[in-house]
């Protein structure tokens, strides 16, 4: 422009004028422009020229739209719409198929994602059970040792035959097959399906036990199972299942002691000692009938003694023996034997004992032999004293019978049974069966010891001797130490026969 302002100032000045004319300024800016207009002639002229040329734009020719414009526009649009509908109609089946496919895919994907999320959040316990079944089912076994080499050490330590035949109530092959069923992923489901309700209940207890262990311990047990399974079908596997069956009959306290052994050699040695001790205890454990026969033999001998030495006896002794109360008579015999009297009774008693017991007796010293006979007499006294108990039996009576009248081996045997079976056997022991009648009738010839070489047939009736621990499912390992109700964790000390 013709003044001395810079091009930038002129540009801003023009913008301000144009914006003022277009009504785009704020009231304050408009006021400033108007002040400028009042005082600045050039500014005013600029505004007028801008406004004048702006007004000249009104002279631009305004075209007139033809009357047919609207009609042709609508025809154009309608033609386009028809083409659109036609194209849509042609594409409809394909679109529908695509839509259906997309819907199915969408639902499928959503369902899959949902299922995955659900399984991530709440993993199916059955899946966990199946995945970890070997470690769960054999949790008591695998927690016993750290390394598969223990099985080789145990096999070597135990020698052959390593286990008491009573340890395996079912054949070894059957246990091996079960181990393989549990170890093989494909057969685990079928094996689980075939379990009885009480077996499932026991497995649930093991499941809870397994998942109560630390993550590291669970990982160790899984790894240990893999290592054992990779050892194949050789002798270590047979040792494993035999050890497992034997272990199941062991009280929890003894299992704990075994776990605490520092080395595999120590543990194997301890196992061997325990197996041998239990074998001896089992051989010396008499059934109720065998005890009855023993008592009958004593009765016969006492009658003979009464006839032979009646006058040598004191009045009190004669009263006891004539009273025919078996408990009192046995008490007299017990005391007499403690005083090293009635030495010839030994031969009479040996006649009624089973071969296994005789074999063990032969290994004993005189003192050990006498202690064992006294032990049997004490058991017989307990049975005789409890004869004839009928009617309902209270929990307290059963607990008292268990704690005060049973030997440790019998207690352990009962504890290894399922709860209800243990209760029934304990009731039978409490009621004393038909001892009163048997005492009066004398020994039953059918229960007398068979001829040498003939195996003893063990009566499997209630209260008779059984293997220490037949393989059974229990409600849980802790149940073993709970005689009758869960709160009773402690057992009273079992008195020795001599203490009674």
């Amino acid at each position, binding site marked *: 422009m013709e003044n001395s302002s810079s091009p930038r100032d002129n540009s801003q000045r*023009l913008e301000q004028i144009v914006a003022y004319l277009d009504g785009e300024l704020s009231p304050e800016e408009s006021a400033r422009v108007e002040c400028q207009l009042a005082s600045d002639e050039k500014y005013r002229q600029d505004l007028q*020229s801008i406004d*004048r*040329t702006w007004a*000249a*734009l009104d002279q631009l*020719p305004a075209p007139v739209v033809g009357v047919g414009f*609207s009609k042709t526009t609508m025809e*154009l649009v309608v033609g386009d719409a028809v083409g659109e509908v036609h194209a849509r109609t042609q594409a409809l089946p394909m679109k529908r198929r695509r839509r259906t496919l997309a819907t199915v895919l969408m639902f499928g994907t959503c369902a899959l994602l949902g299922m995955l999320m659900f399984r991530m959040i709440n993993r199916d316990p059955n899946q966990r059970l199946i995945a970890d079944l070997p470690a769960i089912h054999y949790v008591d076994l695998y927690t016993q040792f750290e390394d598969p080499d223990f099985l080789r050490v145990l096999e070597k330590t135990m020698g052959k035959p390593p286990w008491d035949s009573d340890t395996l109530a079912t054949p070894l092959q059957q246990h091996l097959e079960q181990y393989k069923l549990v170890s093989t992923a494909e057969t685990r489901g079928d094996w689980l399906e075939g379990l009885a309700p009480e077996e499932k209940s026991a497995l649930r207890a093991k499941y809870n036990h397994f998942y109560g262990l630390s993550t590291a311990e669970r990982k160790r047990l899984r790894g240990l199972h893999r290592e054992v399974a990779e050892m194949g079908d050789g002798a270590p596997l047979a040792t494993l299942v035999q050890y497992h069956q034997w272990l199941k009959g062991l009280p929890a306290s003894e299992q704990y002691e075994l776990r605490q052994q520092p080395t595999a050699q120590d543990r194997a040695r301890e196992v061997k000692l325990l197996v041998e001790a239990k074998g001896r205890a089992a051989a010396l454990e008499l059934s109720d009938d065998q005890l009855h026969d023993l008592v009958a033999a004593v009765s016969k001998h006492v009658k003979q003694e009464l006839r032979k030495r009646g006058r040598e006896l004191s009045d009190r002794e004669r009263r006891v023996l004539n009273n025919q109360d078996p408990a009192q008579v046995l008490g007299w015999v017990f005391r007499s034997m403690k005083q090293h009297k009635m030495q010839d009774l030994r031969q009479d008693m040996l006649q009624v004992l089973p071969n296994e017991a005789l074999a063990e007796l032969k290994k004993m010293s005189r003192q050990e032999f006498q202690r064992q006979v006294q032990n049997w007499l004490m058991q017989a006294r307990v049975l005789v004293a409890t004869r004839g108990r009928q009617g309902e039996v209270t929990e307290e009576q059963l607990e008292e019978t268990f704690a005060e009248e049973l030997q440790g081996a019998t207690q352990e045997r009962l504890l290894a049974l399922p709860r209800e079976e243990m209760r029934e056997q304990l009731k039978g022991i409490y009621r004393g069966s038909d001892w009163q009648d048997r005492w009066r009738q004398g020994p039953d010839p059918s229960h007398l010891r068979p001829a040498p070489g003939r195996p003893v047939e063990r009566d499997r009736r209630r209260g008779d001797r059984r293997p220490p621990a037949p393989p059974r499912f229990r409600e849980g390992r802790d149940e073993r130490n709970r005689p009758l109700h869960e709160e009773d964790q402690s057992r009273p000390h079992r008195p020795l026969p001599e203490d009674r």
Partner: protein
Amino acid sequence: MSISDSTAQRYTAHDPDVRLMLQVRDDDAQAFEELVGRYQQRLVSLMTRLVGRRDMADDLAQDVFLRVYRARHRYVPGSKFSTWMYTIAHNVAANALRGLARRREVNLVGRTSGEQGADPMDGAALAASGLMPTRQLEKAELGEVVKMAVMALSERQRMAVLLNKFEHMSYEEIAQVMELTPSAVKSLLSRARANLREVLDPYLQQGTRVAEGTDPA
């Protein structure tokens, strides 16, 4: 860009053309016909002034209406209907002008194209000052001069000027149509008016030839 429900409700309430377009969205042919009737004159005028050729304006305006119709199902009232439609018109016109430029068919001076120089602005100034004597300018002739002055503007200045002058759009609305900022529109319009004044004001005031710089008699 997403448009809030409140914005859509506001424009629906205040702009009857928005309500018509919503009916078009629901495939109401009568509503579309009414919209065509309302906007055909304005649109044809805009296109004529933008491209400078009457014969193309009808086709371009119909193209705009067709695009409006095709876009009906996607329409969301985020502005006045006219703003939305002129955005489409701007794109259509820009494409047409680019096509014309490629074919070298742009005729900035219309029927006097043989007499103008290479620069449209120079041609317009020459036509306005030298070819038409003082005080003999008829209204039709003045229209032609103004037309030449407008056509001498750049495409963007021309669009902004036409929307501001004949569609009475605010800077903000023009910015929306042309996808600019309001301050850019302000600057654009300022330069356009300066250009128009440079060509038209001397003649309008004195009828003298700008190119020669002589005073009127």
